[in-house]
């Protein structure tokens, strides 16, 4: 008789890690493709070429770093790459940047992101922080001035509305949003309307502009079970609700919540970064709490802190909390269901209270 001793449960998924990563990469490339096409059509071929070159630089640096690492540790490069997927980090990081970032900045940040964000922790599956988020934080800390001149020199709509305390002055008209702290896009005479924000036909970070494309890609990936649907749905739902609460306290229109979803990296972060299974908790309830925490932090950072983008830092902060959340929600998931829902409820209440307090503080 042959006895098989393996840790239970002996459950096989139809998707292997390789396949999941491949589909994720394809989804990211679709978003990137939209961006390249937009830049080609709105600004000319040179911009599209620049976008492609930026992606190439990031990929080369990311894959190169891991290759050097393999050589130093005398590992087989091919095997390592197949289970380490550095290109995913590189693509996500490129998509988070604006088109006028310098090649040097992107390259150095990719190297540092992969090295300090992933490799020193033990490689793929061992990292605490989302490496692309680490890379973007490095860019924000070191290279804010390192941009190519003569490209789009205006602020993104996110930076513009941030300068206006994240409020739309006139209901249903976003023209005052951009008309306060910095100009939006120099090529567009009028500032983006809500429709343009959703479609992504404006110049912002390369991959984060189009809510529509990201949602479609996200839906496809969720159906294919590449990403866990709970995270983006919970995140966007919570952000929408909290933003609406905040907006109602300031007399904003009911579409205010949509603006929050469409501006900045909210949708992109929700679909591609918060769903990273390495850095978020394993249990479903844990992921819901994780996503809600991200949403609360995103809103608070946006309206209260003097930072242009809250999604990035909320992801990094919640990554820090993932082990704690996981420990909290641990256990037989069927038995602990009641307790888990209680925790979700508490987090929800905390979120609403925090939003109201922020709004009161801002008034």
């Amino acid at each position, binding site marked *: 008789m042959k006895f098989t001793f393996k840790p239970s449960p002996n459950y096989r998924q139809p998707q292997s890690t390789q396949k999941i990563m491949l589909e994720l990469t394809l989804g990211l490339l679709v978003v990137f493709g939209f961006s390249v096409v937009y830049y080609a059509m709105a600004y000319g071929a040179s911009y599209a070429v620049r976008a492609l070159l930026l992606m190439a630089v990031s990929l080369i640096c990311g894959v190169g770093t891991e290759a050097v690492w393999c050589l130093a540790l005398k590992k087989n490069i091919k095997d390592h790459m197949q289970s380490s997927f550095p290109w995913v980090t590189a693509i996500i990081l490129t998509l988070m940047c604006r088109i006028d970032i310098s090649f*040097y900045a992107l390259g*150095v940040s990719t190297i*540092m992101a992969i090295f*300090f964000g992933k490799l*020193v922790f033990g490689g793929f599956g061992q990292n605490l922080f989302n490496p692309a988020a680490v890379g973007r934080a*490095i860019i924000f*800390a*070191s*290279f804010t*001035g*390192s941009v190519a001149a003569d490209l789009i020199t205006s602020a993104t709509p996110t930076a513009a509305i941030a300068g206006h305390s994240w409020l739309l002055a006139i209901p249903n008209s976003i023209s005052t949003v951009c008309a306060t702290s910095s100009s939006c896009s120099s090529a567009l005479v009028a500032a983006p309307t809500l429709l343009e924000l959703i479609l992504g036909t404006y110049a912002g970070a390369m991959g984060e502009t189009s809510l529509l494309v990201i949602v479609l890609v996200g839906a496809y990936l969720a159906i294919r079970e590449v990403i866990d649907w709970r995270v983006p749905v919970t995140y966007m739902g919570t952000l929408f609700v909290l933003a609406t609460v905040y907006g109602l306290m300031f007399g904003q229109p009911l579409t205010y919540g949509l603006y929050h979803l469409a501006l900045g990296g909210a949708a992109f972060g929700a679909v591609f970064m918060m769903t990273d299974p390495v850095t978020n908790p394993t249990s479903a309830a844990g992921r819901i709490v994780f996503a809600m925490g991200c949403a609360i932090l995103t809103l608070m950072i946006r309206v209260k802190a003097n930072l242009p983008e809250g999604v990035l830092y909320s992801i990094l902060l919640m990554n820090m909390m993932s082990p704690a959340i996981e420990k909290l929600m641990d256990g037989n998931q069927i038995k602990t269901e009641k307790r888990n829902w209680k925790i979700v409820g508490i987090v929800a209440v905390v979120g609403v209270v925090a939003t109201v307090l922020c709004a009161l503080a801002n008034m």
Partner: protein
Amino acid sequence: MNRKENFIAGFVKENPVFGLYLGLCSALAISTTLDNAIGMGLCVTLILTASNMIISAIRKITPDEIRIPVYIVVIASLVSAVEMLMAAFMPQLYANLGVFISLIVVNCIILGRAEAFASKNGILDSALDGIGMGLGYTFSLLLISFVREFLATASWTITNPFNNQVILHVGLSFLEPFKISMFSTSTGAFLTFACFAALFAVLKNKPAKKEKKEAK
């Protein structure tokens, strides 16, 4: 160990910053430029040696129960005296180091060596230990600031603390557009420190590994 080994241990094996992880907060905060590193390192060395010698001198008459308050009074007085002297004769350095001179009082290296070594050994031994540890601290500060200053400003500058004259300035201006400004902040400090600590850990373990290999 004998005096020579003890002295050298302060540089690599028992390097206070990279080996023993003592005195980190000032090490990370000060090491933005070479000037600051040299200045701070020399200050700490001076105070460490002096305090070691004084504490070693009174070790036989200090009652055991109040030894810690006594050490702290000694160290604090030394720091205050050095601070006043610096303010008078090296104003630029004093301005750069600022609050961290006062913080030398609570620098773990000083109290740690006083407790671990000076209270149990003769004056000469304690003095050498102080100098060794202090130089090891300076050495590590120099390493960190060498990297940080280069990455953040693409140049190295050393000035005379007494009259603010620039002794040495190596500026690689062609590298200016490639500066990584993060390294002049605490984030860069931590990253640099982490890399060096890893390097030193490797160096520390090399002889042990070698021995293991030979034993096999």
